[in-house]
Every structure is written in structure tokens, then in C-alpha cells.
């Protein structure tokens, strides 16, 4: 046994090598320049010693013997020979064995050219096979799910895909079946590998056995060009490799950023590029003509129309919504244009589905690594990470399942993490703060929020005791648990946690792509770039910008209300599909109708865009250079790989051009210019510049610091009426959002939603599953399809947002703290 923390001296091919304690021989060799062939070994999964191709001669004092270097921890004095006659013969022999049943169909195999089996056979193989018998045969590729195909003949049984499914994703829906030469990977009959993470198996398969539909037969690896970039599908900021051929993106692959995604992607991150390439992308500006129809036009006319609409308008009558899709640079340009040129503070990148920006920025922040500290404590007071932030879910699951972290859930409905939670407190919507108070002994003895006081106190003992006593860091994952609850419910609960738990940190779960960049760069009411309030920042910005707003403006919902009341002359939408994404659909409709001129920058003709007066086509992340900021505050590079469709332009360029037409110079002629300016106006960004980012491209650069904690006024929640059901509205990984709907591989995966009740509640309704009932809510009576769901809590009813079936947005009233539904008797 080695002393912990001491490096281990071993000899590899006569050289002395220092291995880290516990390091596997194969890794220590690779790190120091000696590559040992391998198939099953994967740095992010536990060793299994399945393929035997990593055999090397090792002498640990008992004479040299062949050992699998992926199963062997380095021990002091180990003598390793990776080049001996015996090693070479063993490696060649194993490769010959692996090829016994492997078809020689490389010319028609997608893996050809990037195939570890091909490469290692060339480098370490025998050059010739002595096997002349018939190889085994299977039906050529079978679908294991809608997107992943399995060609069992090519499989070398390395156990990577199956280990990934079980160990990493927790979806053990593919498994070895049979024995010996009849072994195959397969699903249970008629039960597909329905996993949000299935694409990773394709990436880790060392042969062409697993292929993904979007890439099959599309390209040869030597025709691919690649840049490293960051995924902006959600706010995790997973690192990706964008691969293209002939100016067309063909594949996203996960890149192993140690601080972020560990090489994994969820299928949404992986396959979303299909939407960027979609033929429905907007490629020319559109202008509403005298006939009332949107018609294609040139940039000159479109920009002139937009600029004319913005000329001589009272800033108080301009609102800018959206912008979470934009790069940091575009966000800065738009903040500068809106707040510094137009002078409006009615700017909000969130669409009523997030949390107050100043509140999020004032909380002490955690990184993903801090949240996943081995042995740490994780409190989930937010949405289901498996549905909303796929790669974060994998990190959290790893922390809890493999690294001894303790998970506590305070959610209204079971989540993807529930099976691993130490305590799952089901909290009735609106009552999270009461439950959290009860945890720390502040509250009555009656059951609160669907939780007993004893349960709550048991949890309180874990989180508070741990934080002080045993050096176990506590991280709260914070986000909107339900779109049918006002944000105040989690804000109030978060404040209690903040006050009771020493050194607690928060990881924001706001989910939209670059929403954290938007907060950091001032696309939120009352904020200026650099996480500062208007008053604090004004002196600095007064020097750099033509103007700054005098008072804090409206958030998105307030702006829509003002628009509905005819108080908004110009509504600028930065990739904001308000009709779909604002939880309160009625408000969104009225706001859009009541607004004067609507200027929309977007990738697609969404329903909202169809109602705009000026439509400006913007570039997608694969067509834009810049950076984004993830939920930790990590800034990393987004790289342009292909040309945008038609004449679509980056969002920052549109801001610059509009400003110019209004007689202002934003001083930005490239994304890099933004960093030069930020280094002056935003101290929190001062350590970042394009050179530093290029050096630290993979892990990105963290932004930290922020304003003091703000304490919004507590939310008044009406008490729960026993005869009503409190509505919970959550999101699922795939929905009817414009990007998912335009990804061929993902569009079909969106579920149909129905109003779901806890099974005994459902039985009491006396309706058949799939039947219809009428419910009364704040928006009147609605006829809905219903069903039971054991993940739902008693006294609540659940819907998925933005899905076919029932339109949750038609039930939500944005001013209500919670939505109570009563069943209308027939």
C-alpha cells in the first residue's frame, strides 16, 4: 500500500516514471509518452479488463508476467516492458483474436478512418489472420432506439456502451446477452434504449458497431473539418467538437472538459445541430408591407424600418426581451445599444420563466466541481436536472452514486435524481419556504407542504450539522421548480437556506443557453455589464456610454403587461419566442398584440416572429464567433464553423448597425473589441481576453464576484384549499420548442402531456385513464385529458410545459403566486 498523496516510482521500458497514487499503469504510461493499445479502457469509466489488448509484461518482484495494464495500479518498483517480444506477441495475438469475428467491411463502415480497431491493428496487430473459418453473422444494423443503430457483427464486446448505460447514465437498457462467441449487445426485446444520453455510446464505441442516424453514411473522417466549441442548448456549457464537411455541420462530439461535462453530452446537445442546418432557417430579412404580410426584403430596408421605428421614441416606451441565445459579445452590444443608446432599462433576457437577475447574482456561487465534491451535500431546490440540464445531471449522478455525495430534494414532484436521493421531501407548490423553515425548527408542528415536521427536521440536521461539523460543503441547486409558481417561492426558500447554512453555495439552474452571460452583461432590468446595479455602475458607464437608464426598468412579464396596455411603442425580441416560452400564454398574446412595432431577431419563423413587423435573420452558434457564460459563470469559446444561411448576421452586428443609423457608434467592429471595452468597464471580466481564452479554451475562465445579496419582499401564498389541486408545470428534455422541432432526430421524441394526478387522487376522480375532465383555474374552465402518475404528489396536478396534449401556458396566470385547480363536476 502506498502512502496517500505520494507519487510512485516505476520503470517503463527502462525509464523511470513517476505515477500518481492509485494511477492505473495504462494511464501513467500514456501520460508519460508510452501508448499502450486499449479498447475497453475509458478514462471516465471504471476498468473492466474486458478486451485484453493492453497486456504488457510487468515485474512486481515475482518475475515478469503479462498483465492487463488497465486493471493494474502502479506500485513502487514496478518494472514494465511495453516493447518486449512477449508483450508484442500477446498484443498481436489479442488483436488477431478480436478480428476473428470482426467483419472486414471497413470500406462501408462509418468508423473507417477514425477506428481504434483499424488503427491499433495497424500499429500493434499481427498483419495477417490465420482464421479462415466462417465469421459469426447477425442481422445488419438493428435500431436500439430511434437514433442509434447497432451492427452486432462489428462489436468486439468491449463493454464500453453497456458500462456507460449502467454506470454513467443509469439507464441499463442495453446489456450483453448470451455467452461465448454468441455474446451480443442488445436491448430487452421491444424495449428500446430510451435514454437521454444514448449518443454517448456511439462516441465511445471503439469500432463501427454503434452509429447515430444523423451521421450514418454522411462523411468520411478524413473529409471532416473540426473546431472546438461550446454547446449552447442549455446553460451547462458542455464542450463540443463541431465537425463539418463542405460547409455543412455533420456531427457534434463531446469533448472532455474536466470541470464541466467530462466528455459526455445529452442527446439534445449532440443532435441539435440538425436544427441549425435546417432548410427553414431564416436567411433574409422580412418586412411587413402595406398589405399586412411579411415579405422578404434587403438588409438596408429592414434596418431602416427598424431604425425609423426606434427614432424619437420615449425610452420608457421601448422594451427589449430575450437574448439568452446570444453570445456574450452580442449581449454586450445589445445591452449597450438598449441601455447606453436607446436609454431603456425595460430589458430582460429571461421570459418570466427564470429568477430575478439581481437575486441570482447576489448569491454565493458554486462551480459544478464544488457542487460535486466527494462527500458533499447537494440540496435540489429547482427543476429536474435530468430533464433540463442533461450533462449536469450526469455529473450530479456521479457525485451521488460514485463519490458519496448526499442528495436532498425539495421538489414538488419526483425527479430523475429521486432514486439516489438520501431524502426526497415532496413540497407542495408555494410552500417550499415553510418546509425549509421547518427544517431548522422554525415553524409549527402540523405537516407542512406535504412533508412532516420530523422529516423536515431530519433533513435540517443533515444540512446544518454537516456544514459546520464535518467539512462537507453544501450546495443548493437553485431554479424554478415549476412554471406554475411565482419565482418568489424558491427565492424565499433559498434565503432561509442561505441564512441557516454556514458557507452554503448556490449553483444556478436557469436553463437557457447563455442566460448567465445575459445576467453578467446586463440584459436584465436594473443591471449593467459586470454584475453591477445601475446606480453602482453609472459612474463607470457614464464615461464609456452615451447614456445610462435612470431607474430600474420592467422585467419581461411587466413589459408584456405594459405592452398589452398600449404603453410599448417598440418591442425588440432577441430570439424570444414569447408566444411559446412565456409561461402565461394569454399575457404573451395580449402583449404582442398591444405592442407597437415588433422587431424580431431570430433563426426561425416562430409563431412570435410571424407576428413581428421587422424580422432580422440571425446566425446560429455554429456560424458565430464569440463566447458564452455557463451556469457557473464560466466563459468559454463558441467557434464559427460554417457559413450562415442567406444573409443572416450575428446579433452584435445588427445592434451596431441599428446604433449607427441612430447616430451612435457602439465602438464594436468584431467580437474581440467587446473584450477590450469590458476590461475597462467590468472589473469582474478584467482577467479575460481573447488570448487568455485561447490558452484556456477547454476549461474556460471563471467569472466571480458580484453584488450584495438582495432580499426581495416575501411572496404571499394563499393557503391550500383541500378541494383543489395545486398545479405543477415542469419541462421535459424534448418539447415543442423551435430548435427541437427542427431537429429530425429529436422532434419525434417530445412526449404528449396530460394533467397527471397522484394515483389515489386520480382514482378518486372516477375517470378512466386518458379520459377528459373540466378544471377551473384562474384563466377559467378548461377541458383536459387526465391520467395517473406516481411521480406526482398528493394534492397536486402536473403538466409538462410546451407539449402537445394540454397547453400548460393556457392555465398559467403570471400574477398568481400559485395556480389552484378545481375539478368542475359533470
Amino acid at each position, binding site marked *: 500500500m502506498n502512502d496517500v498523496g505520494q507519487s510512485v516510482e516505476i520503470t517503463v521500458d527502462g525509464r523511470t516514471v513517476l505515477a500518481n497514487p492509485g494511477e492505473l499503469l495504462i494511464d501513467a504510461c500514456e501520460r508519460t509518452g508510452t501508448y499502450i493499445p486499449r479498447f475497453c479502457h475509458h478514462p471516465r469509466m471504471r476498468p473492466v479488463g474486458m478486451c485484453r489488448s493492453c497486456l504488457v509484461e510487468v515485474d512486481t518482484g515475482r518475475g515478469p508476467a503479462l498483465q492487463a495494464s488497465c486493471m493494474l495500479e502502479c506500485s513502487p518498483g514496478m518494472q514494465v516492458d511495453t516493447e518486449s517480444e512477449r508483450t508484442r506477441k500477446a498484443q498481436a495475438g489479442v488483436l488477431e483474436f478480436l478480428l476473428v469475428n470482426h467483419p472486414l467491411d471497413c470500406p462501408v463502415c462509418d468508423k473507417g478512418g477514425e477506428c481504434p480497431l483499424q488503427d491499433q491493428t495497424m500499429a500493434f496487430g499481427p498483419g495477417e489472420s490465420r482464421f479462415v473459418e466462417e465469421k459469426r453473422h447477425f442481422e445488419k444494423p438493428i435500431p436500439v432506439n430511434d437514433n442509434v443503430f447497432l451492427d452486432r457483427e462489428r462489436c468486439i464486446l468491449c463493454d464500453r456502451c453497456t458500462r456507460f448505460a449502467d454506470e454513467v447514465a443509469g439507464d441499463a437498457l442495453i*446489456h450483453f446477452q448470451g455467452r461465448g462467441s454468441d455474446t451480443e449487445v442488445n436491448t430487452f426485446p421491444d424495449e428500446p434504449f430510451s435514454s437521454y444520453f444514448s449518443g454517448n455510446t456511439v462516441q465511445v464505441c471503439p469500432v463501427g458497431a454503434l452509429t447515430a442516424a444523423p451521421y450514418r453514411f454522411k462523411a468520411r473522417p478524413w473529409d471532416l473539418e473540426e473546431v472546438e466549441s461550446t454547446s449552447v442548448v442549455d446553460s451547462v456549457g458542455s464542450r463540443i467538437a463541431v465537425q463539418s464537411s463542405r460547409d455543412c455541420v455533420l456531427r457534434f462530439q463531446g469533448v472532455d472538459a474536466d470541470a464541466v461535462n467530462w466528455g459526455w453530452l445529452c442527446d439534445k446537445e449532440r443532435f441539435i445541430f440538425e436544427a441549425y442546418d435546417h432548410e427553414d432557417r431564416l436567411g433574409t430579412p422580412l418586412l411587413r408591407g402595406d398589405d399586412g404580410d411579411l415579405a422578404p426584403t434587403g438588409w438596408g430596408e429592414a434596418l431602416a424600418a427598424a431604425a425609423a421605428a426606434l427614432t424619437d421614441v420615449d425610452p420608457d416606451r421601448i422594451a427589449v426581451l430575450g437574448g439568452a441565445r446570444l453570445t456574450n459579445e452580442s449581449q454586450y452590444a445589445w445591452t449597450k445599444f438598449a441601455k447606453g443608446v436607446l436609454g431603456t432599462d425595460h430589458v430582460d433576457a429571461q421570459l418570466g420563466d427564470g429568477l430575478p437577475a439581481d437575486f441570482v447574482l447576489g448569491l454565493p456561487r458554486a462551480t459544478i466541481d464544488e457542487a460535486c465534491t466527494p462527500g458533499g451535500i447537494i440540496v435540489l431546490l429547482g427543476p429536474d436536472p435530468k430533464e433540463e440540464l442533461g450533462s449536469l445531471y450526469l455529473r450530479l449522478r456521479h457525485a451521488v452514486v460514485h463519490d458519496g455525495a448526499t442528495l436532498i430534494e425539495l421538489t414538488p414532484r419526483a425527479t430523475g435524481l429521486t432514486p439516489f436521493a438520501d431524502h426526497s421531501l415532496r413540497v407542495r407548490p408555494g410552500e417550499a419556504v415553510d418546509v425549509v423553515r421547518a427544517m431548522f425548527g422554525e415553524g409549527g408542528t402540523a405537516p407542512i407542504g406535504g412533508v412532516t415536521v420530523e422529516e423536515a427536521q431530519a433533513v435540517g440536521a443533515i444540512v446544518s450539522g454537516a456544514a459546520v461539523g464535518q467539512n462537507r460543503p453544501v450546495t443548493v441547486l437553485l431554479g424554478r421548480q415549476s412554471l406554475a409558481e411565482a419565482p418568489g417561492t424558491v427565492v424565499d426558500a433559498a434565503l432561509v437556506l442561505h441564512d441557516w447554512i454556514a458557507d452554503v453555495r448556490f449553483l444556478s439552474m436557469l436553463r437557457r443557453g447563455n442566460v448567465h452571460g445575459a445576467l453578467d452583461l446586463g440584459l436584465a432590468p436594473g443591471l449593467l455589464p459586470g454584475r453591477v446595479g445601475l446606480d453602482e455602475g453609472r459612474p463607470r458607464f457614464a464615461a464609456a456610454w452615451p447614456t445610462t437608464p435612470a431607474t430600474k426598468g420592467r422585467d419581461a412579464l411587466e413589459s408584456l403587461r405594459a405592452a398589452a396596455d398600449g404603453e410599448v411603442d417598440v418591442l425588440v425580441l432577441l430570439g424570444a419566442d414569447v408566444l411559446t416560452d412565456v409561461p402565461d400564454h394569454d399575457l404573451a398574446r395580449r402583449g404582442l398584440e398591444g405592442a407597437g412595432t415588433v422587431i424580431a431577431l431570430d433563426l426561425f419563423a416562430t409563431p412570435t416572429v410571424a407576428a413581428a413587423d421587422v424580422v432580422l435573420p440571425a446566425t446560429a452558434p455554429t456560424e458565430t464567433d464569440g463566447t458564452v457564460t455557463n451556469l457557473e459563470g464560466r466563459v468559454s469559446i463558441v467557434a464559427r464553423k460554417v457559413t450562415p444561411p442567406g444573409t443572416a448576421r450575428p446579433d452584435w452586428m445588427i445592434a451596431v448597425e441599428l446604433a449607427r443609423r441612430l447616430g451612435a457608434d457602439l465602438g464594436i467592429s468584431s467580437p474581440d473589441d467587446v473584450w477590450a471595452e469590458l476590461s475597462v468597464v467590468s472589473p469582474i471580466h478584467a482577467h479575460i481576453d481573447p488570448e487568455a481564452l485561447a490558452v484556456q479554451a477547454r476549461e474556460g475562465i471563471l467569472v466571480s464576484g458580484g453584488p450584495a445579496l438582495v432580499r426581495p419582499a416575501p411572496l404571499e401564498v394563499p393557503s391550500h384549499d383541500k378541494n383543489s389541486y395545486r398545479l405543477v408545470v415542469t419541462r421535459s428534455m424534448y418539447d415543442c420548442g423551435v430548435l427541437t422541432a427542427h431537429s429530425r432526430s429529436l422532434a419525434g421524441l417530445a412526449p404528449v402531456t396530460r394533467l397527471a394526478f397522484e394515483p389515489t387522487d386520480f382514482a378518486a376522480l372516477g375517470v378512466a385513464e386518458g379520459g377528459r375532465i373540466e378544471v377551473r383555474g384562474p384563466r377559467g374552465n378548461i377541458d383536459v385529458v387526465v391520467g395517473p402518475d406516481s411521480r406526482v404528489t398528493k394534492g397536486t396536478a402536473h403538466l409538462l410545459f410546451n407539449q402537445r396534449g394540454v397547453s400548460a401556458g393556457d392555465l398559467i396566470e403570471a400574477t398568481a403566486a400559485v395556480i389552484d385547480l378545481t375539478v368542475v363536476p359533470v
Partner: protein
Amino acid sequence: MSFFTEANARTAAEVIARYPRPRSAVIPLLHLAQEQEGWVTRDAMVEIAELTGATPAEVLGTGSFYEMFRFHPVGRYVVNVCTNISCQLLGGEELLHHVEESLEVHAGGTTADGMFTVEEVECVAACTEAPCFTVNYRYFHRADPDTFDAVVDDLRAGRSPLARGAQGDDGNLPAHGTLGRLRQHIPDDRRAGVVPPEQADQEPVWLRTAPSTTSAADA
């Protein structure tokens, strides 16, 4: 609708309780399922998965490693005829031929009445008694077509053929899948300390010396 009969569901619960982790019961429950139906059905695997917290794919994956779990229907009696070297030299192939002809079914098939499944197998480790065949894994040594016919006559007449077999055991020859005539019941106090290994804070019950066993039982 559950797969296991009421009695077997009770047995399943008891078996699961024997292990620190429910998943460990997958193989015993596959046996139980095979005992109930003669083979392991799809419904059985789905239910075992539910009971043990595994996925159906894991249950099938685990079970299919073992040749003696059957995932397709088999006859009440599974006849294995050895044609490996010793048996082959002494007439194993002729014996198989006779079995196929007399039962009118090819190796791998099942008779129309569902009584017999015939399989050609590799050495069953009775080479000194070649040629041999087994019925539901009971051996019949130095067999010839007459031995086989007599066994079939017995079975069709509802008599046990075991007296003709290797063991000289004249009990019943139960249907395929039956594991044993007795089922073991382990009282709570005799269980070998059912806690997950990482939570075990004392030696297992079966290692303990007499006095502490008593005190554990008293507790």
C-alpha cells in the same frame, strides 16, 4: 397482472429478503420463474426486474449467460443426447438418430404434444458410461434405443423412469424447471446478517461463535 403465482410471489419475497441487495436475487428468481412455467417468459423477466430493481435488459443479460435457463418454450421433458467423442464412438449418434425418429422431431425441436424437447449436447461428463443421455438432467448411462424407448414409455404412462437411470433413484421425475422437492426456508435469526457489505459492523452470523449467536437471536 403479476407473473408469479401467489405462493411463488411469497417465495420470491422471501428469497429477496435473504440478500443485502435485491439485485442479488435475480438468478434464484429466474429459477423460480422457470420452475413455474418450464421456461423463462418475457413477463417473468419484467416482473423479476421490478422486484429486484434491475432493468429487464439486465435480467435477460444475466440469465442468458446460463444455458440451463430457457427463453423459449420447451417440453415437459428435455432430452439431451451426448454426441461428443466417447459417446460418439460407442453409438451416441445412432442413439440421437433413434430419439429423433421415434419422437418424430429434430434435435432442437419439441414434440407436438409438448412432452419432449430433444437436444444434441456436448460432453456431459459421463464418458465412462457412454453412450448416455439425460432427461431433465437425470442421467441414463450405457444407453441404447431400448433404454430410451422404455424411458419414454414410462413417462407417457405417468411412471417414473428414474429406476432405469444412473442414480437408482426411484422418486418422481418432475417437469423441466423444477429445482428440488423441498424448498429451503431460512428463519430471520438464521440469516447471514443481511446488510450491505459496506454497512456491516460485525462479523456475519455464520461466523459467530455459539454464545453470540444466542444473543443475536435474543435481541
